[in-house]
């Protein structure tokens, strides 16, 4: 087995744009679930909407900024559509509606009737031009060891992680403020907050829009190094984002970032080790395709172990969760 290569790939995942995208999506989900207590099981839909609402206008010739604003606007509209009927109801209803809505939008973009716009099952590609055009890094290959990329790959990483830092800063500013206090109060007991004169519905809507907006930006970062593929936006994506958020700690600033890094490093390591073992003949009873599936079985087991033995995550406050609220 080529251990150097396996570790090199794994370490590279720490700063990969995909890790940044998942971290952003998990930060958004943290606003929903960790701070406000909204059970959003459709974060994948926000990533999908971000991706398509960015790629479709770009392919139609829109400038970069227009495409980004379009992605954000679409996620806001989607958040309203989800929130208006459900945020007045108990938390469980939002969970049902979001998981269904996420599947609905995925089926919509996959329908052949919309092939001209969404590319149906083939998805979209060729939308990186406007983003690459503003890349200030001269052409060439930079970096060392496992962190050696060309100018475009560096550009995606720099922008992706800058957005992660900005989003974390935003969450930190919000959650230390009276606004954050209100949404945390809503997480604990929304009737109590209502009885103190706060418009709970409006706060929940603001939180849903904010977290969804971050999800749609994550969707843009996610597609910059690859093509738009509807198959990427299954409920599986939502559950990976949940795993990442819970791994790091739901109501924490650094939790989603570190959670995303650990998630992707572990996925890469297990893939490298399993594939290496199969190629070297040490594992003869499974194929590489099966090994790919086993990784995700491991993710499921890890998630179960996590919520049983460390429900507060890595950064979470044990004391905070020791109360049965």
């Amino acid at each position: 087995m080529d251990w150097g290569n396996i570790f090199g790939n794994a370490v590279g995942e720490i700063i990969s744009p995909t890790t940044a995208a998942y971290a952003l999506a998990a930060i958004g989900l943290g606003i929903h679930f960790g701070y406000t207590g909204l059970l959003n099981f459709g974060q994948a839909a926000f990533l999908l909407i971000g991706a398509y609402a960015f790629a479709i206008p770009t392919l139609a010739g829109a400038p970069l900024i227009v495409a980004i604003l379009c992605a954000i606007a679409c996620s806001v509209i989607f958040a309203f559509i989800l929130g208006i009927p459900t945020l007045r109801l108990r938390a469980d209803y939002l969970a049902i509606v979001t998981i269904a809505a996420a599947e609905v939008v995925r089926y919509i973009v996959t329908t052949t009737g919309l092939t001209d716009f969404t590319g149906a099952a083939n998805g979209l590609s060729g939308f990186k031009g406007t983003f690459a055009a503003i890349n200030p890094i001269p052409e060439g290959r930079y970096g060392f060891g496992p962190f050696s990329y060309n100018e475009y790959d560096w550009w995606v990483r720099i922008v992706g992680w800058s957005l992660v830092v900005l989003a974390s800063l935003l969450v930190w500013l919000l959650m230390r403020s009276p606004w954050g206090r209100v949404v945390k109060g809503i997480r604990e007991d929304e009737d109590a907050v209502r009885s103190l004169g706060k418009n709970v519905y409006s706060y929940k809507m603001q939180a849903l829009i904010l977290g969804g907006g971050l999800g749609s930006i994550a969707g843009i970062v996610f597609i910059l190094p690859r093509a738009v593929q509807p198959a990427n936006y299954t409920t599986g994506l939502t559950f990976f984002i949940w795993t990442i958020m819970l791994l790091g700690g739901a109501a924490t600033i650094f939790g989603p970032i570190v959670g995303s890094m650990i998630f992707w490093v572990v996925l890469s390591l297990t893939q490298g080790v399993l594939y290496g073992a199969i190629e070297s003949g040490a594992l003869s009873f499974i194929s590489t395709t099966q090994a790919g599936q086993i990784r995700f079985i491991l993710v499921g087991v890890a998630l179960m172990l996590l919520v049983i033995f460390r429900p507060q995550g890595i950064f979470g406050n044990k004391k905070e969760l020791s109360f049965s609220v």
Partner: protein
Amino acid sequence: MSNSESAVVSGHPLVKGEVGPGCAKVDPIVVADHVTRQFGGLKAVDVDHLEIPRGQITALIGPNGAGKTTMFNLLTGFDKPNTGTWEFDGKSLAGVPAFKVARAGMVRTFQLTKSLGRLSVLQNMLLGATGQKGEKLIASLFKPIWRKQEEENTARADDLLARFKLDAKREDYAASLSGGQRKLLEMARALMSKPELIMLDEPMAGVNPALTQSLLGHIKNLKSDGTTVLFVEHDMHMVTHISDWVVVMAEGRVVAEGPPESVMKDPAVIDAYLGAHHDEDLGDLMEDGPNPVLEAERKAREAHPEIEESPGWAENPTPPTAEEKQA
């Protein structure tokens, strides 16, 4: 039901005309008309007319299932009535959402305490403050906009926490408090908004006797600060000791009201509480000591006989305004 056989003397300084269920008050803060709420075949609340006197402590009593908490929920916008209108301070609040009712100055607590477990005691308190600039999404990002207001609110919260003997728990999670302390916290939190009317749903339930004494003191202090208090309670000692006025509900209706000493002897009340065959007088419960509130009223009347002649009776003829309270 009629009050003809009851011990209630007609006329009372808080009341215009005869004392009886639904009687008009000299200075009402809440006026409710034809409020009904039906749960399937059960009429949980069916109140024709009810007025709550301003600046006084009013007890809402009644057997289990009488509709007291439902009435609370309706008045505060947490539940919607089938019919009915009500006014608070002259403004109609029928159909107004709960958070706007609270902003109007009518703040409630809950029978099952709703402390916000994973927030600290201080954070719980600060949440009660109204008109916070930092609660707006954009403004919250810039601390200088809300820092000063936050400091003022923190000072107020510390003051209230000290009054309620919770200052030692300031930084603890509310979930770590005992049941009685949570009741205190909920009451203190409601006071952060400087309400005109505070509605306490069973403030004594589950509170140990030592704390009960201090809670009683707090409620009396509220009245001297000019806040109107309406509370639901089963503990007759508390009702007779601190309330100026008692409203009795049974099966959704107001069956009697009056000053505590006479309403306990009202056959309608005894009927509602204990059933028609019970011959024990509820008033026995208050025989264990003089009622300090009534004592004070009696002394005040002796000292100022001219008040007796004036039609409007109140200990504080003009309750202090919001500005005076702040001062």
